[in-house]
């Protein structure tokens, strides 16, 4: 019999590679963007601007205004002035604005995705499939609540809190803006939002969408700038509520300066979330959970499953499977539709990640990474990796790295898994993989985390409350619980 099929082997490539598939949506980016105060864009009193870079190429995308004290004062006073009429508007009317904003985000989704990817470095498939649709979803969801608030809190008459200062991080720029703004507006509050220094551009597009939706001036104001601007906003005396999402380190400082007057505060901070895999788990599914848990968005995820706790008997099996799967991840141009891992958001973060991986190896951990693929010459890149031989006392097992770096440890009994998982100052999220139902409930009961995913990881929805315990912060965002921070009852 014929063993070969010569025609076939002669005419087909021995290696089948994916051709570059860049997203080519044309995008207009202005040379500079002012502050969004009282419904219009204006130059900052500071007369200072800073550059917003594309971390994948190092190119300057635009210049963004650097707000000073005067600018923050203007923004807060615009929000204060807008508050009475906005909060008196019926829930139904507020809902109409939120619906309009949500639909406009959907209509401009392509453009927003490309901009988010260029400004922040995340792969286009994530901004296209997750960030932007979920941002729209938060506005839709909260539009639904706007005229039903009295049913959200049984027996109470919820009233708005007032002017909300909101400071957001660079990992999910537009999505975090939506998380903050949508519930605030639904409940009748007005806002001053401070986007992260490196990722202001999509928030400023959102401001354009507010204009298109006819949102009354002053209801949302956006002040851009570095940490100093955030500090000014946090310390501002005329803010009724402050919401911060970011690192625990900065969160603690924010909590200090925010301790003025009758001020509400919610903090969504860092994490070192444990991801626990029992030997009876569906291992291929668990591997997908781990990939999604730590290599999603370059690991720039506050709830990243960065501590992998594997039952000792399956350690070798997991290492092999993880290595194999790691080999199929495509690192590179974030605008390429086939890219799985994009660019690291900023140079400081890249240095920090590198420092941690070196420290981990110095303490005796073994590094596993994909070495086959070459990284682009320009831009900020870090190969996704995991480390084995990690001890709970190692710095890479304790500190939040906020990069695509996974620390793998083992356990023998459920008791030990819980002990190791809870041995952390953080308590944002946790993951458990097992086919035994009773064990899932037992683990979920005893893990110290605000969010626990069972046989899945990194699932988000506007209806599901999100937030931490311990040094991962307090307050919830999303769902009915998320509304609580934006009402007085």
């Amino acid at each position, binding site marked *: 019999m014929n063993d070969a099929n010569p025609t076939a082997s002669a005419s087909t490539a021995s*290696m089948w590679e994916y*051709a570059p598939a860049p997203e080519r949506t044309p995008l207009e980016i202005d040379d500079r963007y002012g502050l969004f105060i009282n419904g219009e864009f204006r130059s900052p009193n500071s007369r200072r601007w800073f550059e917003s870079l594309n971390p994948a190429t190092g190119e300057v995308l635009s210049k963004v205004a650097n707000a000073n004290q005067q600018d923050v004062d203007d923004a807060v006073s615009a929000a204060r002035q807008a508050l009475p009429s906005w909060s008196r508007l019926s829930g139904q009317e507020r809902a109409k604005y939120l619906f309009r904003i949500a639909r406009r985000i959907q209509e401009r989704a392509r453009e927003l995705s490309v901009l988010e990817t260029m400004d922040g470095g995340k792969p286009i498939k994530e901004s296209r499939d997750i960030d932007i649709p979920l941002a729209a979803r938060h506005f839709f969801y909260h539009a639904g609540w706007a005229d039903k608030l009295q049913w959200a809190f049984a027996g109470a008459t919820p009233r708005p809190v007032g002017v909300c200062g909101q400071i957001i991080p660079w990992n999910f720029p537009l999505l975090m803006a939506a998380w903050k703004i949508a519930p605030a507006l639904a409940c009748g509050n007005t806002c001053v939002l401070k986007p992260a220094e490196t990722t202001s551009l999509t928030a400023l597009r959102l401001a354009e969408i507010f204009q298109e939706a006819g949102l009354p001036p002053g209801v949302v104001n956006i002040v851009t700038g570095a940490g100093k601007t955030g500090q000014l906003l946090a310390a501002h005396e005329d803010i009724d509520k402050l919401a911060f999402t970011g690192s625990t380190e900065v969160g603690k400082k924010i909590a200090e300066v925010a301790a003025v007057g009758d001020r509400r505060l919610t903090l969504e901070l860092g994490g070192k979330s444990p991801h626990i895999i029992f030997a009876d788990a569906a291992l291929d*599914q668990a591997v997908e959970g781990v990939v999604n848990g730590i290599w999603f968005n370059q690991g720039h995820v506050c709830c990243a499953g960065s501590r992998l706790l594997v039952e000792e008997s399956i350690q070798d099996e997991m290492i092999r499977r993880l290595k194999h799967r790691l080999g199929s991840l495509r690192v590179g141009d974030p605008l390429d*539709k*086939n890219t799985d891992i994009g660019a690291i958001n900023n140079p400081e973060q890249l240095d920090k990640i590198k420092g941690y991986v070196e420290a981990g190896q110095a303490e005796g951990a073994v590094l596993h990474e994909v070495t086959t693929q070459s990284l682009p010459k320009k831009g900020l890149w870090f190969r996704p990796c995991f480390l084995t031989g990690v001890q709970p006392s190692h710095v890479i097992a304790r500190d939040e790295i906020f990069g695509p770096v996974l620390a793998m440890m083992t356990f023998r009994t459920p008791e030990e898994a819980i002990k190791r998982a809870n041995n952390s100052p953080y308590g944002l999220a946790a993951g458990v993989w097992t086919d035994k139902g009773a064990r899932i409930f037992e683990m979920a009961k005893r893990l110290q985390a605000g969010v626990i995913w069972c046989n899945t990881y990194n699932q988000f929805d506007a209806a599901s409350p999100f937030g931490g315990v311990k040094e991962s912060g307090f307050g919830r965002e999303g769902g009915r619980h998320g509304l609580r921070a934006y009402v007085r009852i």
Partner: protein
Amino acid sequence: MLEQRAASFTRRSIKTQSKADGLRLALSMVDLTTLEGADSPEKVRSLCRKAIRPYEGDLDRPVPSVAAVCVYPNLVPVAKEVLDGTGVHVASVATGFPSGQYPLSVRLRDAAQAVEAGADEIDMVINRGAFLAGRDEEVSDEIKEVRSAVHPAHLKIILETGELGNYDAIRRASDMAIEAAASVGPIRDGEVFIKTSTGKIAPAATMPAVLVMLEAIRDHYFATGVRIGMKPAGGIKKAKAALHQLVMVKETLGDDWLNPKLFRFGASSLTNDLLRQLVRMERKRYMAAHDFSEA
């Protein structure tokens, strides 16, 4: 998570050169199939011609032949006569296809006869009745006997995933089929395949079902270094769906399996859609259905 992962392969963007290469590759992997009660020698002869030379028009790069022609045992001699020496294999379904609801002696005789008549490859069905009843050993023993009976012809073991009920069962059946075949003797690349479906039952070769089987093949390779082949069959009608399958194979098993020796599509109408897309890429326009010969 399995379905989510399977869906992720459909979101890879396959364009330009990789699309052209992928379409050719997929074409070279087709087991061009006709399994009708009304199959005639004439129809099989046409199909064999199509298999050798799928497209009569001129393209910049020649179009490859398909991998094999798959027919009922009675028509194996007809196919053999046309295909002998062309490099296109003759495959035959046997062992009481499609239901497998016959005594073992009849199924074994069926398979052996197809090989005697000239089949290079036998597509057998497993005994789903026994599998679903939990008589795993019986299923396994039967696979062993069929492999011995058809040697040296290649064996493709049809699990009929649409009848197995859930993904766990598909995985268990895959492992069992591979173990059983391996226990008979060493397996060289391409000598044993696992195959999703007969094509007579829906759902057939869905992405998640195929992914479960690919994972079983991958784990067997990790454990033994032996490469088992994979054949999704049934329901893959469009070029795009074939490319999704290739992406899944590439990212689950690696480039070694992107080869007609280790990966096949059980299909008929897929062939012309692959050609249609291939011709469109070169001529920048779609051809009419009648521009392609029947498949």
